[in-house]
């Protein structure tokens, strides 16, 4: 189903939860709404479902405005954060509920439930009650129940929030594959960027009731359009006065910069081809991170964070090292842009 949302607005009492939100979603896409808690993600999802009424704006499914349709008539599947399974019904009855509402014949119901039970790997659990299932199994039931009536749109509210970290990983992959197989347009809400990056075709970053950016995970990472997005996605350090940093002296309009660990290279003098673009720093802390070292290095007044391969020579605290900042995400009050290290570029052109 093609979904279009125009100028959506919602207040809860004094609280302005959703501010003039517009977006559209292609049929068959899997979209992640990502952002901090209280940012309005869940409100948007619930308005799409018809569980919440927008103050103004349009929600259009398949070219038809659905604002006035109750949730019962929107042909959606909704997976709740705590699954909201019917406690007094078995797995079978839970999945069959939506089909019974549709007044399907008994054999048809049985067939469809069986199909979903197999699809979600719940065979043998049909007669269990929700309290007899593990968290992951409950999630699968919630998923099967939402899919059973063959909805046009699947909405998932923090689908993995209540699950152990270990199983979460496994379920993410499973969910992604399943949605691909079913081919249904899906939107899920999460506050976990790893989850969004891993599962979604496209991500919408929601903050303070607004859509900050919409795009593929790679685009958002590469070209964050607001400082919020830049700081929310990936790891980063904020530098207050970027003009003091070597290679960025001419960034006069910018006051601050955001630098990701992977933008930074550190090492001994011999490890750099363009020594002139580097500056000196002191190693302040070393954290062993399993597959690499996380290094805190002090450059002038700022402290930068980067990673260093275990294959390279191990650094020590207090050691003097060379630091090369490849690029930085610069911003001031009005705008933001990405800048490459100026010295690096100059030097390259000079050598050629």
């Amino acid at each position: 189903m093609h979904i279009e949302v125009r100028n959506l607005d919602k207040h809860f009492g004094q609280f302005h939860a959703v501010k003039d939100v517009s977006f559209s979603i292609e049929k068959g896409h899997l979209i992640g709404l990502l952002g901090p808690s209280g940012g309005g993600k869940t409100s948007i999802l619930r308005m799409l479902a018809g569980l919440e009424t927008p103050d103004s704006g349009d929600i259009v499914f398949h070219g038809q405005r659905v604002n006035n349709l109750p949730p019962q008539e929107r042909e959606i599947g909704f997976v709740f954060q705590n699954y909201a399974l019917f406690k007094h019904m078995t797995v079978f009855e839970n999945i069959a509920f939506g089909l019974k509402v549709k007044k399907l014949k008994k054999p048809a119901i049985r067939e469809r439930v069986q199909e979903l039970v197999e699809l979600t790997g719940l065979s043998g659990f049909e007669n269990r009650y929700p309290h007899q299932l593990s968290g992951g199994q409950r999630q699968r039931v919630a998923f099967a129940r939402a899919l059973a009536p063959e909805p046009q749109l699947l909405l998932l509210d923090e689908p993995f929030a209540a699950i152990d970290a270990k199983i979460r990983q496994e379920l993410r992959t499973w969910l992604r594959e399943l949605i691909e197989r079913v081919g249904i347009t899906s939107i899920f809400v999460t506050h976990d960027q790893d989850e969004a990056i891993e599962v979604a075709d496209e991500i919408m970053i929601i903050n303070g009731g607004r859509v900050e950016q919409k795009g593929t995970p790679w685009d958002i990472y590469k070209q964050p359009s607001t400082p919020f997005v830049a700081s929310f996605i990936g790891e980063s350090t904020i530098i207050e006065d970027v003009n003091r940093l070597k290679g960025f002296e001419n960034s006069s309009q910018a006051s601050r910069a955001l630098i990701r660990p992977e933008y930074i290279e550190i090492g001994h003098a011999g490890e750099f081809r363009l020594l002139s673009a580097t500056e000196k720093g002191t190693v302040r802390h070393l954290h062993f991170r399993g597959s690499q070292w996380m290094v805190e290095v002090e450059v002038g007044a700022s402290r930068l964070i980067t990673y260093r391969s275990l294959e390279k020579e191990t650094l020590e605290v207090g050691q003097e090292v060379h630091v090369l900042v490849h690029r930085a995400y610069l911003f001031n009050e009005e705008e933001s842009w990405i800048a490459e290290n100026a010295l690096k570029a100059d030097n390259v052109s000079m050598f050629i």
Partner: protein
Amino acid sequence: MKRLWITLTWLVFSILILIPLVVLATGAFGEGTSGFIKALARPEALHALKMTGLIVLVVTLLNGLFGIMMGIYLVRATWLSRRLRQLFNSIVDLPYAVSPVIGGLMIVLLLGPDTIVGAFFEQIGFKVVYAFPGMVIATLFVTFPLMVREVMPVLQELGTDQEQAASTLGAYSWRTFWQVTWPSIRWAVIYGTILTVARSLGEFGAVLVVSGNIINKTQTATTLVYQDMENFNVTAANGVALVLAVFSIGLLLLMERAKKRKEVH
């Protein structure tokens, strides 16, 4: 020390509850089984028990139904403002604080033969006070909070998730209520019903004031016990009281069972 406390507790329960029960039972059979049967077989006793039964039936039906609805509205109604719900919520408890006699007096003041409303009903041949309707209204007043207060916490704990899930699966409110909400509040409703039955069975003060305690007309089981005592007819009073006590103990046992089921779900 522990022994002493346990003994003292047994003593309190025995003196306050167990021994009086035994004394009541032996008192009822003070003139043998025949005396007990004779006390119950009196036409006024049979009539009083019938009245009590009728009141219990009508009151439990009405307050059960309206109590459940009121409970649902107080927890769920988005069409009522929060303030209004809070206000109603505190008003629900008021009958607890009202002495039954005052409850009865209220009905007399409002619907008595000297009032406008009462006179109007009297004219169309419908007697309220000193008649069955008044007794029902008085008992309704006294027992109203019981069902509401049982249903509300369960609904609060249940939350709206399951109901919303049902609505996204295409179910409208009627089906959602019967298939999703009702199974969860069922035991609370049963518990509330038992409480309402017990309270309306035993209501005395309000009914005494409203009914005028007219023998073979508006006399209930509890007001008959009172009248028998006033007439120093101790055995008869004990007999009727024993029947009421047995009913109450039966209800108490049911309550225990309902409470356990209520906790499971």
